[in-house]
Structures are given as C-alpha cells and as structure tokens.
C-alpha cells in the first residue's frame, strides 16, 4: 500500500496507545518504554499485532522517546533501539497490509531561549532518529505530541531533509486549542503546511469529544489531510494513578462524527486499546472521506499567532530597517540588540500586525546578525516577522531558525532572483513579496507590471509554490519624479488583485520621496491604495497620520465591524494628552522615578546649559542619592529601577545633544554575562541598567555564555572589568572556569560576580576579584576600580 495514494479514497486507521498498554504490563513510571524494544520485544509485537488484527492501517513504532537526549544514559544507541523497534513493528505487521510509522516524539527539552536546547541541536537529534527509522524500513514518519511549534519545525525539517518518507505531524493542544507554548491551531497549520507535511492533526491531551469541538477550527484553515488521534478521554487521577475511562463504544461513536467532520486519518493515543481501534474501524471504515477543500489562504505566522491576508488590510511595521536611520545603524554596529527590540515592541504597541526585519549594512556579517535579530525579536514580540534582505545566504539562515511561517522580502521577476528564492520558500515555507521588476527594469505601465507579476506567479508554480503564497508589490515610486507614478502603481494594484487573484503590497512612503511634509501625501496615497484593493502596507506604525488613515479606512470600508476598533482607539481620547510638566527639576524627576518629567526637564535644561554640566550637577547627585537610599533600606528595588529608567530617558536626550556636537560621555567598557548553563538574566539586567546610568559602556553578552566567548570579547575590546552572574550551584562551576580563563589570558582584567547562590566566601573561593550583593555593589566596585582614570 502506498499511503499517499490511499489518502482520501478511504478512511485510514492508526493504531492506539502503546505507553499505557506497557504500563499495564509492568512498565514503571519514569522507566524508558523504548528499552522494552530490547528487553521485551515479544510484548511489543503482541500489542502491535493486536492493533493490526483490530484493523489498523498504520502502526506506530515504540520509539516516542527514542532520541539521543532521552536515551543518553541508557547504554544503548539510538540506532540500535530504533532498528529493533522498526523490526518488531514490521514483524507484527507481517501478513497484513499495515504500514509502519516511525514514531517521533518531543526531545523532552525546552528550546532556546527559554530552555537550553539549540535549534540546530534539536535538528541533529531528530535527523538521527528519522534517518535510523527509514534505514530500518519504516514506511512513513509520524511526528507526534508536539507542544512547541519551534521544536516541531526542527523535527519536520529533519525528517524531510534526511529521508524520502511521507511526513505526518500531530500536535497536542489544550481545550482552548492552544499549544503549551501559546500557539493556536491556525499558527501551527500555517507552519506545517508551509514546511510541506503530507498530513497533520491533533493527538493526545484529551478524548474524542473535546477534539470534536476543535475539529471545525482545524478544518477551516487546513488544506492537507487531517489526522485525529485522541486519548480515551480526559486523563484524571484516582488515588495518584492516571486513568482514562472512555470505553470503546463511546470512543468509536465520537470518532465516527470526527470522520464525518472531515478527518481522513484516525486512531488513538493514551489509554486507547485494540478494542477502541477495533470498534472505531467497524464503525468508520465504510464512511467516504469528506473531500478536503483547498482553502487558498494567504497566511504567515509566529509561534503564537497567524496573520491572514484578505479580510482586513495588514500593516507591516517598517522601523527595523537601517536605511536612513542613523541611530539604528549605530545600534547594529554596536550589537545593541535592545534598541532593535524596543523598536519592535513599540511598533506592536502602536498597532503593527507584522514587523519587517532588515539589518543590512555593508560592513556587517549579515547572515549572523539577521539570525540573531530574528531570534531575539521573537523572544519579546509575538507578531509574525518579514525577513527582509537581498543576501540569500542571510535569508536562508533566518528562514531556517524563524519560529513560524515568515513573510519573505523579496523576490522579483529576474530569473536569477526566482532561482535563488523559490527553493527557499519551498523548503522552509513562507509567503513571499514579489516585486514587479525584472531584467528590463521597472515597467512604466500598469500592464507591464501586471505581466511581470503573472510571470512570477507562473514560475513559482513550477517550483510547487501556490499563488496564495505570493504577494505582489507593484512598487510605489515618488511622484516628485513623475506625477503619473501614483496612478500606474494603483492601477497595477487593482489589475493584479482583480485579474491575477493574488494579494498586493506597497512600501507606501516611497510615493512622497523628495517632497516636503511627506505624511500628507503618504496618508492620502495609503487610503487610495487601500481603496484599490491593497492587502498589505509597509508603513511606520508610530506615525499617527498613517494609523489615522488606516483606522478611518477600515471603518469606512466595513473592514472594521461596527467601527469597534475605531471607537476603541479614538473614543475618550483627550485632544492632547497632557505633556509632562516641566515643573520638576531634573534631579527631583530622577529621584522620584518619573521618566517623562526627567526627559522634559533635561530638554529644558539643555536649552541653557552644557550637557556635561547637567550630568554632573543634576544626574549624578540624583543617582547617588537614590543609590544611598536603596542601600539604607529607605527605598527598594522597584523604585531604584524607576529612577534608573528616568535617568536613562534623560541621558538619551543629553547624549543626543552631545553626539550632535561631537562630544562623548562614554567611559570604560564593562562586559556583563550570565555564565554558561544559566538561562535567567534578570539580575544581570538590573546591574546593567544601573551601570549604564553611570555612563559605563556596557557590552552585554546575554545569558548562557561560554567562558571562551567571554574571554574573546574581553580581549577584543581590551575590557578591564567583567561582571558575571550565576543563579545555581550547578552553574557556579562554569563561573569559576570563566574566571580562571579570564585571569590566565588577561591578568589585568578584574572579575566581579553576583547571583542568588553566591556569598562573599564562595566568590573568593572561585577567585573572583569582587562580590556584589546587589546592583549598587557593582556600581561601587566599578567606581572604585576606575577612579582617577576619568571624571564625568
């Protein structure tokens, strides 16, 4: 039987639970079920043979946890166990038509940055398992019980790139339809269809009744065959033991409804037995599969949510792009990711649906930086991202590690561009922005641009990419160079939307280049473009004029149901939100921790005073006072940090003025890092905020940093002070090693340490130069160390 040929012709049946069956036969909690492939092969064969006899078309190998991570200490290799498991299943299936699915479950680790499993490590672990399964003779791969889209992506890529087998995937969700890592069904489907899985669905978690309720949600967004493998009910605990109590008759009746609801492949998970499967086969085998509609949805996703195009215009925030932004260029050169992250969060708060990420600067390693930017932005923003680069190596690097189905910017009508980009879209999934230009340049007519769009859509199809995954950008060009430009672009938008049936996009603000007061033109053009059918616009969400145009258009066009968004945004809004009063002195504003007042006071002072004078007479005394009050227990950490944030916002204004005059306040460089193995860094971040207030030049290496990386960074910049934090007794050894390497390599470099488990004695024992009990301690040590070197 060739499984892919059978799909849709008749209902296909998976087998049921294995782990729960083994527990009944004596498998202890916490024991590795995979070892039973070696110790009790006959038992496994017996269970699987029962499933075959019950009518299962596909039996799963007993390899749920057969990966290098879970088997690391069992004394057997992954290959040995998987080979045995596949052979056992094939033996059980012998004489029947049943196929053997190589079963792959999660690694048991949480992915970085929240956990410590790197994406490429997960990919390697899954690659090994998938390849071993194919080699041993499995007929397909089932990746199941995935609760994290990112880990799931690693597994699917591994299976598809290392084997030729069909790949089925089922994820586990809660009753609200959410994955454990927060994603919804639509986002998981977008990701998995983008990666090109052959079938997908849900397993485990709860029983068929609950899954039945989630099925419509799944069917509404899914275009590939759907799999439903529920438990025998919701697990509950009786006397400390987990029990599943939906009986075969009840189970199969619900499965019948699930089949009628559109699932093509059904079976069971925890608690189900050959009796459940047998009853289900009896009841469902003669049901004709419901034809699976192609949904033609244009959709991108993050780990948390999906954004689909068409219902309502979509806004892409354009601020993370260095073109014309000197502050961002500086941040990229300084590796100052926090600046990028704040830009991202602000755009989300202001209403962006997707964020553009472009870090292209001539002098940087773009593949590495784009990968880092994407990873870090995804750790603080849950919107889908648009990966924007002209460097295909950087594009592939970022698409690979992106958690979700990205928007890609861009491909164009040139042969070379399509040849480079389409294979990436096919491999990693994504929706790609297609620019209407080719070898002959940008056509001056709407018809010409339409023709290029048509060519791109046709060529994409040759690569197996549906037009739903293409969004055409008809290129807004400034009307200051040719007044017909707006009309050509808009006509092309309408033609493409109406006649080619694909979505369109524009970088709206290009229309006004070279004109004064550009926002007036931009906002009007934006509205015109929306009226012509524009689906997505790349805009500055921090611009009130653009957002006003957007909300007004949605209200007028009916895209904003009952004008609720419009009302929500504008009703009750004060005509002008009271500007921070300049009444407080800068010193008082910092002491009280009032950010806006501090900034306003600094701006006012700068009109009459020199920046350095302001720092010395207002900022430093205020910070010193707050620091002292903190140490004396008069005020506490949240207040100390409020003052620090207020000082920071004042410093930004002051520094802006200084750099305008070519002056510098930056003092000595200090490196901060959380040691290898430690994935929490809130303490380190507190220290960072305070040290920055005292104008030190902070190099933040982040968390889980290897000793080598710390030494390398310290050496590169000639850094004389390194601050390390460790939270756990288990990671203090890595701190000790980092100190050892630093002292050996850079005898002049001092190391200060802090963290929950450290004490002055412990710090001494691991040869730290200083122990800080809190953030102010770190400030004092830095001041003492660098005193006399430089004054403010």
């Amino acid at each position, binding site marked *: 039987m060739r499984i892919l040929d059978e799909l849709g012709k008749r209902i296909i049946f998976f087998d049921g639970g294995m782990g729960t069956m083994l527990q009944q036969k004596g498998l202890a909690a916490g024991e590795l079920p995979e070892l039973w492939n070696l110790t009790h092969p006959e038992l496994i064969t017996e269970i699987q043979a029962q499933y075959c006899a019950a009518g299962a078309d596909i039996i799963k190998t007993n390899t749920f946890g057969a990966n290098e991570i879970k088997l690391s200490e069992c004394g057997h290799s992954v290959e040995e166990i998987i080979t045995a498991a596949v052979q056992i299943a094939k033996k059980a299936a012998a004489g029947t038509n049943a196929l053997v699915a190589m079963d792959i479950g999660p690694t048991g*680790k949480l992915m970085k940055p929240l956990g410590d499993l790197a994406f490429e490590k997960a990919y390697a672990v899954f690659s090994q398992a998938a390849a071993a399964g194919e080699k041993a003779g499995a007929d397909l791969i089932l990746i199941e019980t995935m609760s994290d889209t990112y880990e799931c992506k690693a597994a699917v890529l591994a299976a598809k790139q290392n084997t030729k087998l069909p790949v089925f995937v089922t994820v586990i969700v809660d009753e609200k339809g959410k994955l454990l890592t927060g994603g919804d069904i639509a986002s998981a489907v977008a990701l998995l269809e983008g990666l090109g899985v052959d079938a997908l669905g849900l397993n485990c978690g709860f029983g068929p009744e609950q899954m039945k309720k989630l099925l419509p949600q799944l069917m509404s967004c899914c275009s590939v065959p759907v799999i439903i493998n529920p438990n025998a009910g919701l697990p509950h605990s009786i006397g400390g033991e987990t029990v599943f109590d939906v009986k075969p008759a009840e189970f199969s009746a619900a499965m019948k409804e699930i089949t009628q609801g559109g699932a093509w492949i059904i079976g069971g998970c925890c608690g189900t037995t050959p009796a459940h499967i047998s009853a289900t086969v009896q009841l469902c085998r003669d049901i004709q599969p419901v034809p699976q509609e192609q949904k033609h949805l244009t959709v991108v996703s993050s780990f948390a949510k999906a954004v689909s195009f068409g219902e309502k215009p979509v806004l892409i925030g354009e601020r993370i792009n260095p073109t014309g932004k000197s502050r961002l260029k500086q941040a990229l050169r300084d590796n100052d990711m926090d600046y990028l992250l704040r830009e991202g969060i602000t755009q989300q708060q202001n209403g962006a649906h997707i964020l553009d990420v472009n870090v292209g600067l001539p002098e940087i390693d773009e593949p590495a930086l784009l990968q880092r930017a994407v990873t870090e932005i995804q750790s603080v923003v849950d919107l889908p991202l648009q990966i924007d680069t002209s460097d295909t190596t950087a594009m592939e690097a970022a698409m690979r590690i992106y958690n979700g189905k990205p928007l890609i910017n861009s491909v164009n009508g040139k042969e070379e561009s399509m040849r480079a980009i389409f294979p990436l879209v096919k491999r990693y999934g994504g929706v790609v922005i297609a620019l209407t230009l080719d070898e002959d340049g940008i056509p001056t007519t709407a018809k010409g641009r339409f023709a290029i769009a048509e060519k791109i859509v046709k060529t994409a199809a040759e690569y197996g990419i549906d037009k739903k995954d293409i969004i055409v950008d008809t290129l807004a060009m400034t009307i200051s160079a040719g007044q017909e430009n707006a009309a050509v672009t808009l006509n092309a938008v309408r033609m493409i939307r109406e006649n080619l049936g694909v979505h369109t996009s524009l970088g709206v603000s290009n229309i006004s280049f070279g004109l004064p007061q550009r926002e007036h033109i931009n906002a009007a053009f934006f509205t015109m473009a929306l009226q012509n059918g524009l689906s997505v616009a790349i805009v500055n969400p921090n611009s009130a004029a653009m957002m006003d145009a957007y909300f007004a258009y949605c209200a007028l066009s009916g895209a904003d149901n009952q004008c609720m968004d419009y009302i929500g945004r504008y009703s009750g809004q004060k005509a002008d939100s009271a500007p921070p009063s300049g009444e407080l002195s800068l010193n008082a504003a910092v002491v009280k921790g009032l950010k806006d007042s501090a900034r306003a006071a600094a701006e006012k002072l700068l009109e009459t005073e020199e920046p350095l004078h302001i720092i010395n007479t207002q900022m430093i005394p205020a910070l010193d006072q707050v620091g002292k009050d903190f140490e004396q227990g008069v005020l506490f950490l*949240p207040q100390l940090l409020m003052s620090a944030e207020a000082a920071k916002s004042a410093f930004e204004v002051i520094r802006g003025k200084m750099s305008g005059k070519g002056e510098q306040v930056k003092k000595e460089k200090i490196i901060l890092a959380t040691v290898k193995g430690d994935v929490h860094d809130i303490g380190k971040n507190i220290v960072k905020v305070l040290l920055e207030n005292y104008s030190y030049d902070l190099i933040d290496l982040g968390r889980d940093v290897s000793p080598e990386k710390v030494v390398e960074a310290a050496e590169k910049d000639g850094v004389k002070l390194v601050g390390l934090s460790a939270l756990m007794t288990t990671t203090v050894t890595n701190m000790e090693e980092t100190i050892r390497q630093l002292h050996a390599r850079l005898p002049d470099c001092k190391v200060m340490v802090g963290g929950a488990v450290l004490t002055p004695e412990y710090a001494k024992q691991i040869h730290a130069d200083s122990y800080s009990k809190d953030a102010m301690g770190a400030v004092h040590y830095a001041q003492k160390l660098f005193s006399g070197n430089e004054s403010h």
Partner: protein
Amino acid sequence: MTDIKEILRYLGYRGKPGDEQVLKSIDSCMEELSRAVTPRSLSHSVEVTFTDNAVCLDSLKIESNDLIGHLDGCGEAILFAATLGTQADFLLERTSKIDMSRAVVLQACAAAMVESYCDDCEREISAEAAKRGLFLRPRYSPGYGDFSIRHQHDLLRILDAQKKIGLTVTDGCMLAPSKSVTAVIGLTSEKTSCHIAKCMGCKSLNCPFRKD
C-alpha cells in the same frame, strides 16, 4: 489568591509596607500575568521506604538526610510539579526590554503566583488525602538542604512532565519554564504537619527572602 506581602518580600521590602507606586505596579502586573498564563500541575503517588542513608520513592533512590528527616514517618508521598508555562517567561523577557522596574515587580508577582498556585493544588491533594486519613507534610523540593538539585531530572521523568505540562529541566538543573516548582510531599497518618516550616526549616540562614 496571591499574597501581596509575599510579593513585597521577594522585592526585598523585608516586612516594610509598599509605597503607592509599587502597589499600583503590583496590581497591574498581576492583572497582566493572570491574562497571559495558564498554570498547570501534575501529581503522582509513590511509596516511601527507607534504607540507612537513603529514601526510596518507588524505585527512585535519593541520598539525602534532610529528605529522610522530612519524610520520616511517611509511607507514601506525592511527587508534584507545577508551572506557569512559557508565557510568563516571555512576558518577563519582553518587559525587561522596556521597563526594568516593572520587570522586577512582574518577576516577584510570577514567583508569588506559582507558589500560591502550588498552595491551591496542595489543598486539593490534602482534601483527597484526608479521605484516606492522611495528612500532608510541606512541599520539599530538590535543592533544599542536601536534597540534590540533580534529582529534578528524576522527578520530571517520573511525572512525564514535559509531555503533560511542558515542564523541562536544563543541563544545569534549572526548571524551564522558570516559574515552576517540583516537590515531594510526604503523606502521614500523624497530624504533626506544619506548613510554616517551608521557609524556616531551610538552612540558608542568609537568604534575603527568609521570613523572620
């Protein structure tokens, strides 16, 4: 209900009352957290036996005098795990990029929230045990006293915690997601259990969070 005093204690207030600003911030952080997270928990009953220098929870052997002392008189224990999930960590990370002051308050709120969630779970376990005439000892976690933190791995494996509630442990024995708890809860027929011992029974005398 999460206790404001606990949150202030985590923030280093050492029994002093919170000022208006911090109390407002706590309110708003609690609201944001409650919207973002779905706490989940697991428990599994094991038999407790003792050898000379170890205690066995079913087949898991743990060499720890403190745990032996803690489970003294118990024939059964509950292995317990709870987590606020990855959303709490995401929120903390995001907040720390825009407002460190709020981030520390949020972190304290999350820590207090997971503890109070554990207390809620424990009440259910306690009610269930009471039906069998058993009483609960306080939660005792890997990392307390000489109960090695390396046993996090064992507890999570036995509970199948990754699959069931998404709780994992890093190579450095940190729980991930971070706002999580694992514990052993002894069950005993003696009514000598005390709930306050949780903090005072700990040997970290210099801990800044110690309840005086």
